[in-house]
């Protein structure tokens, strides 16, 4: 009982529980259809002609396909914590960074190429710089001009994708080059996006653990005025959070565009800002700013992908899929809502009391 209470009070208990519930749906489905109940979780090695021997399985798909949202969730968590608002421009910024990069790699006005016009690293740096510029723009509006985060980021939400289209001369730019495709393909047996996500998570966690940055951001989010009086540069910290969010949007854009070796400005990162915000919420973080739990957000991101992959695996028709997705999300959000938690605590307390009386 004591260990159970300990587990229950673990901050990641509910996000992990939500992820496990989604996974469990697959076990039930596989068992009901007479397949191996654990087939969803099977990971095997597979020989391919294009990428050599690679890891193969639904779990790999979830971790691989969830990369973009997981990377976005890192930046979104920081922004939510520091400014008590969301950056709704990340999906469009992803698309802009990807378009800018592919435009540089292919050359302006070229719609399809197999050779790179500039070295790959230049293209990647262009995307990252573009992401930082967008982040700085959002950061300036929010931190220095005190504009509501949603309104401030609404500007790039609507404009960034259009700028990307202009950069690409209104075309889908195909960069069918193996060194570029590598970012969205495989490093040895492991999908490269997984490795990129892991590096992002490790670097940010170290930064938050080893420096006081995490604490500073949280204190600014809890009370910006008090933090400033206590000697923190609140504006700079909020600005920094948005810069980092822009940076991660750029990295997510690079991954998304490399997967399809093209800059599809209309579709890259479409609606992903919503998934990123949802993963922060599913991770048990308050969208009101202040305390945050990065691991929760990342688990939230993979939960969203697990739902998508599960719906594919169940063969749910794509017209109905959003309905099921909504039902699952509603259940998870209700489970994690504070009043529901309080209700459960009261319920278990009264049960314990009743037990005590009987004894």
């Amino acid at each position, binding site marked *: 009982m004591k260990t159970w209470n300990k587990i229950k009070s673990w901050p990641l208990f509910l996000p992990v529980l939500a992820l496990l519930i989604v996974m469990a749906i697959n076990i039930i489905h596989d068992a009901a259809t007479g397949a191996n109940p654990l087939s969803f979780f099977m990971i095997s090695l*597979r*020989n*391919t*002609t*294009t*990428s050599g021997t*690679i890891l*193969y*399985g*639904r779990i790999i*798909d979830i971790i691989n*396909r969830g990369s973009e949202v997981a990377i976005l969730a890192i930046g979104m968590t920081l922004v939510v914590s520091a400014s008590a608002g969301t950056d709704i421009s990340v999906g469009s910024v992803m698309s802009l960074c990807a378009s800018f990069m592919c435009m540089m790699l292919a050359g302006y006005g070229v*719609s*399809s190429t197999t050779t790179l016009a500039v070295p790959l690293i230049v293209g990647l740096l262009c995307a990252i710089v573009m992401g930082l510029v967008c982040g700085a723009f959002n950061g300036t509006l929010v931190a220095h001009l005190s504009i509501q985060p949603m309104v401030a980021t609404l500007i790039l939400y609507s404009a960034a994708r259009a700028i990307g*289209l202009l950069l690409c001369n*209104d*075309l*889908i730019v*195909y960069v069918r080059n193996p060194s570029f495709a590598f970012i969205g*393909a*495989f490093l040895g047996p492991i999908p490269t996006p997984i490795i990129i996500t892991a590096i992002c998570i490790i670097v940010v966690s170290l930064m938050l653990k080893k420096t006081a940055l995490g604490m500073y951001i949280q204190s600014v989010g809890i009370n910006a005025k008090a933090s400033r009086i206590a000697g923190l540069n609140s504006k700079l910290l909020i600005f920094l959070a948005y810069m980092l969010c822009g940076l991660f949007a750029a990295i997510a854009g690079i991954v*998304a565009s490399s*997967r*399809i070796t*093209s800059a*599809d400005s*209309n*579709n*890259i990162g479409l609606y992903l800002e919503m998934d990123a915000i949802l993963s922060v919420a599913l991770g048990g973080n308050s969208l009101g700013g202040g305390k945050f739990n990065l691991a929760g957000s990342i688990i939230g991101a993979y939960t969203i992908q697990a739902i*998508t*992959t599960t719906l*594919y*695996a169940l*063969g749910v*028709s*794509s*017209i109905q899929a959003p309905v099921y997705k909504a039902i699952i999300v509603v259940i998870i959000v209700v489970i994690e809502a504070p009043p529901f938690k309080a209700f459960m605590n009261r319920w278990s307390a009264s049960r314990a009391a009743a037990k005590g009386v009987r004894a």
Partner: protein
Amino acid sequence: MKKKLLGTLLSAAMVMSLLAGCGGAAADTAADTATAAVEEATDTAADAAEDAAAEVVEDTEAAADAVEEAAADAGSSDGGLISIGFAQVGHESDWRTASTKSCQDVFSEANGYDLSFVDCDNDEAAQKEAVRSFIEQGVDYIIIDPIIATGWDTVLTECEDAGIPVIVIDRTIDDSDKYVSWVGSNFLTEGKAAGEWLKAYAEKQGISEINALVISGSTGASAQIGRSDGFKEIADREGWTILDEQTGDFTEAGGQEVMESYCKSYEGKFNVVVCQNDNEAFGAMTAMDNAGVAYGPGNDVILISFDACTAGLEDVKAGKISADFECNPLAAPFVEQVIQQLQAGTTPDKEVYMEEHWYALPDQIVDFSIDGAAQTMTEVTDDVIAAQY
């Protein structure tokens, strides 16, 4: 009040026509005709105040005819150019860009046209405004690629009142028939073509059982509905199994993710993959590569795609896509035929289907027919790819 407003409008119209006349070479003729039109319109206005509604319609038509004549005269005074207004959807894909370019090439000044082009950026209100500005300009013909299918009746009535024939291309208008012709692709035929080709090809290869996976386009898009229904019709007739149909939203990323899942759910159970556009096919190919599934001519899995854009045809030539069914973006030559029919005074067909090609490599070319009409397939060569949009 109404009369006052009408008077203001009419005087404005007179000033406008005078201004227009000043700019032209044959100022007198244009001004005269315009004045005649205005006079007749004034009569109409007087009638309108007194007479029954039925008569008004007749007179309005007369006025409209006069305006049309005036416009035609003004047109001929500009060295015989036919003026055309084109309200395009936007520029969201290579296909759309090709469609725009086709119109700009065909309706060039060298060919005797004066084209006003408006890119409406997927904004339906902007598109209706564009059409109204064409009416004000007094163009001879209006071409619309409607962003949405409904809400057109008022605007098209305005066009009709102004006597300007409207030609609709690509997408359809559902709530009004006040246009001369619709020019576009027959998606149902495209879907049937894919089915009939597969039947003939499977017979030739001695494949007895077809287990197909479909990656469909954006749910509810006319291209998705037509291609799904057409293919399904043949599949049902032949008793094929369609294992699954999920949407890839016409994107490469969507095609990749759906195929990745298909490869796991239906491992070793499928021998046909139908992608409803080339971008989805690109994604499906990557996913099959990563699952170790061999596809294309000579392999286990037959890959069928639609659209036949340049990049798609390159993959047909490279022996990856087995057959590619075109969705022709080059509507302008067909629109020109309609305009020529109208100029000659004949009535064009209400629905004009564009000629489309079915592409494959020689080994995959088989004879088949759709609803009894024999089809010829086009062999993919470098020249064909270079000429494609």
